[in-house]
């Protein structure tokens, strides 16, 4: 059996569909009760936690709105050129410095006289990259170590617990400033790396506590009785069932990481010019806040909408994935 931490993403998907077979009768029962109560069609065979959650999510307006917003932001991040013909680095002219928004140039011009609309759009990519990379890092590291700590326990658990305690002992912003200062050149992945360093313990603790309760379940005992190896139990039975809280937390945290990146860039230890980043734009805007508030408001608004979308989506996911909270 291969190492459970190696091929998680694909296995997670496979395991998700295979979940009802794992004998999680509790989830099956609640799911069928809900479909029955809602008068939904009973022909749907596959009533796993995830398919049930998906059915509920589609009806949640907050989920739909936040998903659409995130989709638009992702498209902007991948191909900002679809929305503007202006190259954010070219055609700048100091004579247009800080010109206010107009019908032709919706967001006006920045300090250097560049088109602000294009710059704000192109800034989406760095924010999304940092958020996404950080979440991937914390989930892989946190879930991997969390499963090991929760499932095997013993001295491994103790070592990992002390390690998380140490990281928790350092205030994140302060630690991030010190570590980021070690790098001469800071790109999106550098910032993400440092945020992972201070972010993974939370994911780990979530995963560990889920695994601790799930490994006592009957279906895990059943799997073991049938001769399943530890790796197989972890992969097919524990991981898919323990993932829900991590997904909810990571979605909300993704917004938080984007905000932290902006704050660090604003402080001058995040991304560096000539990178285009909302945090850097806000930093440049600060001295001109009185005469040119648009320099602050547009990147600020994009930042807020992005963070808000992920928070709303996380809330909707929690409502759908954790029936206890309803």
């Amino acid at each position, binding site marked *: 059996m291969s190492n459970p931490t190696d091929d998680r993403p694909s296995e997670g998907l496979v395991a998700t569909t295979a979940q009802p077979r794992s004998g999680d009768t509790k989830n099956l029962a609640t799911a069928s009760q809900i479909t029955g109560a809602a008068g939904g069609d009973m022909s749907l065979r596959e009533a796993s936690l995830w398919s049930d959650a998906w059915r509920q999510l589609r009806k949640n307006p907050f989920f739909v709105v936040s998903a659409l917003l995130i989709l638009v932001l992702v498209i902007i991040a991948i191909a900002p050129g679809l929305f503007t013909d202006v190259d954010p680095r070219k055609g700048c002219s100091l004579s247009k410095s800080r010109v206010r928004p107009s019908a032709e140039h919706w967001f006006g011009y920045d300090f250097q006289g560049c088109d602000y609309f294009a710059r704000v759009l192109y800034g989406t990519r760095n924010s999304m990259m940092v958020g996404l990379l950080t979440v991937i890092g914390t989930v892989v590291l946190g879930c991997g170590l969390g499963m090991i700590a929760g499932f095997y326990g013993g001295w491994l658990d103790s070592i990992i617990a*002390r*390690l998380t*305690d*140490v*990281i*928790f*002992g*350092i*205030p*994140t*912003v*302060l*630690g991030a*400033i*010190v*570590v980021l*200062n*070690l790098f*001469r050149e800071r790109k999106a992945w550098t910032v993400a790396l440092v945020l992972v360093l201070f972010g993974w313990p939370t994911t780990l603790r979530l995963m560990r506590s889920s695994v601790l309760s799930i490994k006592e379940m009957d279906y895990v005992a059943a799997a073991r009785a049938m001769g399943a190896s530890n790796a197989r139990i972890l992969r097919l039975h524990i991981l898919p069932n323990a993932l829900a809280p991590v997904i909810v937390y990571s979605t909300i945290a993704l*917004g938080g990481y984007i*905000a932290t990146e*902006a*704050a660090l860039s*604003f*402080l*001058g*230890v995040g991304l560096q010019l000539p990178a285009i980043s909302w945090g850097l734009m*806000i930093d440049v805007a*600060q001295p001109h*806040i*009185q005469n040119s*508030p648009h320099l*602050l408001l547009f990147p*600020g608004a994009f*930042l*807020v909408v992005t*963070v*808000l979308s992920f*928070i*709303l989506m996380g*809330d909707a996911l929690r409502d759908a994935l954790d029936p206890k909270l309803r």
Partner: protein
Amino acid sequence: MGRYVLRRLLQVIPVFIGATFLIFWMVYAIPGDPIRALSGDRPQSAAVMRTLRERYNLDDPLPVQYGKYMGNLAKGDFGRAFSGREVSDIMKQRFPVTIRLTLWAFLFEALFGLIAGVLAGLRRGSFLDNLVLVTTTAVVAIPSFVLGFVAQLTLGLKLRWFPIAGIQNGTKSYILPGLILASLSLAFVARLTRTSLVENLRNDYVRTARAKGLPTRLVIGRHALRNSLIPVVTFLGIDIGSLMGGAIITEGIFNLPGVGGEVFRAVRTQEGPIVVGIVTALVLVFILCNLVVDILYAVLDPRIRYE
């Protein structure tokens, strides 16, 4: 209880050593020679450099440097900055500002967070409840530095209610920064209080209290609220440390001369002793807060002690 406290105290030691060593290592791992950087482009005499390197133990291997530093720290000596000034002297000058800011933020967080949370939790589904939910979501989504600028722009520049920078106006200078620093935690406190209260109001003991004819005031005040506040108190306690760490951004926005600004300046100019000194002090505050909260938790909820 005694055993629990003792065990918890012993756990603090490796965490403190680990966290401070991590910071120490990262601060001194910066490529480049801080002593050479002192004089900028001008050449330095070899003798001066040697003396300085010796004074700051820079030629020792890192664990030895760390050990010497901790030995001095145990005697209450935070060392000297490269400028020759006592680090404890700098901290004495800077910490009062940060502590004042943190206390104001803590006050706002506890007061407004609890009031909003209790009001929302008692009338679940009401207009007020929804208002609290919407406001807290918005506050969580707006990064504190954006919120800080908007507050500066509107409350400071347009309405002229508050000064927008510095500490010349006494107490008044701390209100706006305090609110901004508190905003995120305030939203969390409000939500936590609400959820916890709603959950407790559903419990059997609340129904029993009502059934035996207690007035609502006592049912809520003496039964439901007391139990609901346990997680809130823990959150508040842990948050003191985070507030002090997060003050660095607020201090930057409002130009307050606290430790945040000093740490930031020292990180950029590679003044290791100042960074290590202040961060060590903050880590200590952080860890002590967690310790006090854990012990408080065991006092409030006896089940914890027997795990």
